[in-house]
């Protein structure tokens, strides 16, 4: 009753303002552009976002709990299914952590092949990111062009590891088997076509006025904020922080390759787009150096069949396509890990969504989710 009285008191203009309610819009978990089962609860004023809450966990499978019940080796295929877009990187991070814990030295040859495969995975992940990001913003042809190139990478994965998506590519100590014949040629052929294809995407997007209008000054985040909120990977580098684990704490043989770390200036969606495109080119550069320099030797180190790392705990992280992917593993000296904690980059990157989205339009929310490059398999674990 009081409300009615209040409305009667106000003049028309104020009443008009009051009459515009906030609209609560439920985006997801079934929505074409939340990239999986992410639910974003948006509070809108007209079409502007005034508040936002992420609801995650629809894909929670308890990987951390499951890996406590499995031996060190057997948990590896589960890690492929975290960030299923770049399964090779996940596998590498987990395997390397166990190797670090158990003190296993990996032969150089295996390291080089690991580098090639993970960089291919980086390209494939970025291609998928570009595909979906462009599709969210409405450029649907880029989507299929990217899938065309991704298919080539998946073929290489199939040739080397035996699977296209959940590759289970590496074993503790090295590789399960040597690379097959024709691997070198396939990788080189792919590196041959890649620059031309990237310039095709660039022709479609980089200078396009609509793309510029949609991505420039959208989802801006300053370097300080980005660090505070825990952004890693291309999302952080888009804000101008020149930090890459491959350079900062080189693992495998990354200190032997020459490559640049691209960074952005404004920390907006457009910069992150450019950073990722350049990262694809740099990944190609690393692959070309690695493929020419594969040393002779064993493809795996000698590792006991039943691995029992000494008591201890170790945290190891690699630069996955989406950011810092780390594993924290505690060993109690038995065949099974005592605790496995997965630090997925998407989990921390998604936290930045609220900061980036406030004050933007609904359409920008879609673009920002795209630019964060999240994978729900990794967020929900």
């Amino acid at each position, binding site marked *: 009753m009081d409300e009615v009285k209040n409305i009667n008191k106000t003049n028309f203009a104020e009443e008009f303002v009051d009459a515009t309610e906030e609209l609560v819009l439920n985006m997801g978990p079934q929505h074409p552009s939340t990239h999986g089962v992410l639910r974003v609860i948006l509070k809108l004023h007209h079409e502007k976002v005034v508040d936002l809450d992420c609801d995650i966990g629809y894909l929670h499978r308890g990987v951390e709990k499951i890996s406590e019940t*499995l031996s060190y*080796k*057997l*948990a*590896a*295929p*589960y890690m492929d299914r975290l960030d299923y877009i770049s399964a090779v990187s996940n596998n590498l991070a987990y395997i390397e952590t166990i190797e670090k814990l158990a003190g296993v030295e990996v032969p150089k040859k295996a390291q080089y092949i690991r580098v090639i495969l993970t960089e291919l995975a980086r390209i494939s992940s970025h291609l998928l990111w570009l595909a979906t990001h462009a599709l969210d913003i409405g450029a649907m*042809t880029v989507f299929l*062009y990217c899938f*065309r190139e991704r*298919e080539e990478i998946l*073929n290489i994965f*199939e*040739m*080397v*590891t*035996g*699977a296209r998506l*959940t590759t*289970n590519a590496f074993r503790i100590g090295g590789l*399960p*088997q040597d690379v*097959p014949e024709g691997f070198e040629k396939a990788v080189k052929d792919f590196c041959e076509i890649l620059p031309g294809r990237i310039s*095709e995407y660039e*022709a*479609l*997007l980089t*200078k*396009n*006025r609509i793309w510029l209008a949609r991505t420039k000054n959208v989802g801006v985040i300053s370097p300080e904020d980005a660090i505070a909120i825990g952004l890693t990977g291309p999302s952080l580098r888009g804000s101008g922080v020149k930090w890459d684990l491959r350079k900062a704490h080189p693992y495998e043989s990354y200190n032997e390759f020459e490559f640049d770390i691209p960074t952005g200036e404004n920390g907006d969606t457009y910069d992150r787009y450019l950073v990722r495109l350049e990262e694809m080119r740099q990944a190609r550069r690393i692959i070309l150096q690695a493929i020419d320099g594969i040393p002779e030797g064993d493809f795996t180190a000698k590792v006991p069949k039943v691995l029992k790392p000494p008591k201890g705990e170790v945290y190891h992280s690699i630069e996955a396509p989406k950011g810092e992917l780390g594993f924290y593993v505690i060993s109690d000296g038995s065949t099974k890990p005592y605790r496995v904690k997965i630090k997925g980059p998407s989990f921390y990157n998604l936290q930045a969504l609220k900061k980036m989205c406030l004050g933007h339009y609904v359409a920008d929310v879609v673009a920002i989710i795209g630019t964060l490059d999240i994978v729900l398999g990794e967020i929900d674990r």
Partner: protein
Amino acid sequence: MRMKELVSKVLFVDLIKGLSVTFKSMVSHAVTEQYPKERSKIYERFRGEPRMAVDENGKTKCIACNLCAMNCPVGCITVEAERDPETKKRVLTRYVFDMQRCLFCGFCEEICPVNCIQLTTDYEMSQYDRKDFVLELNELEKGMEKIKYKK
């Protein structure tokens, strides 16, 4: 410089560049595979449908060592064996492979000491009934029974 930008904006240079890319691809060859008619190349290492190898007499190669079952992250393999009273060897009595749970990680194939269980390059594994995914030894030896879709 600004003038140049303005002119290119008015003449839609950026848009025409994109349009030319799509037009070029329209006249170029499509990359689609017409699946049932054309099949893509499957590499030798592909991990697909599981098979159990047999020796020249048609008997199973499996020695019932249980390594595959132990090395399966999801526990989709069940091995049941008996000790033969005469030869004192373990003899396989039942072998079940639950394909609904299989991750196709290839650990069983790697660990098998006699190369009995193999993940073949066969990738068409759809079935109408969930029960058909639980494979017994004889099915594993001759391959899954598949119902071909007819128009």
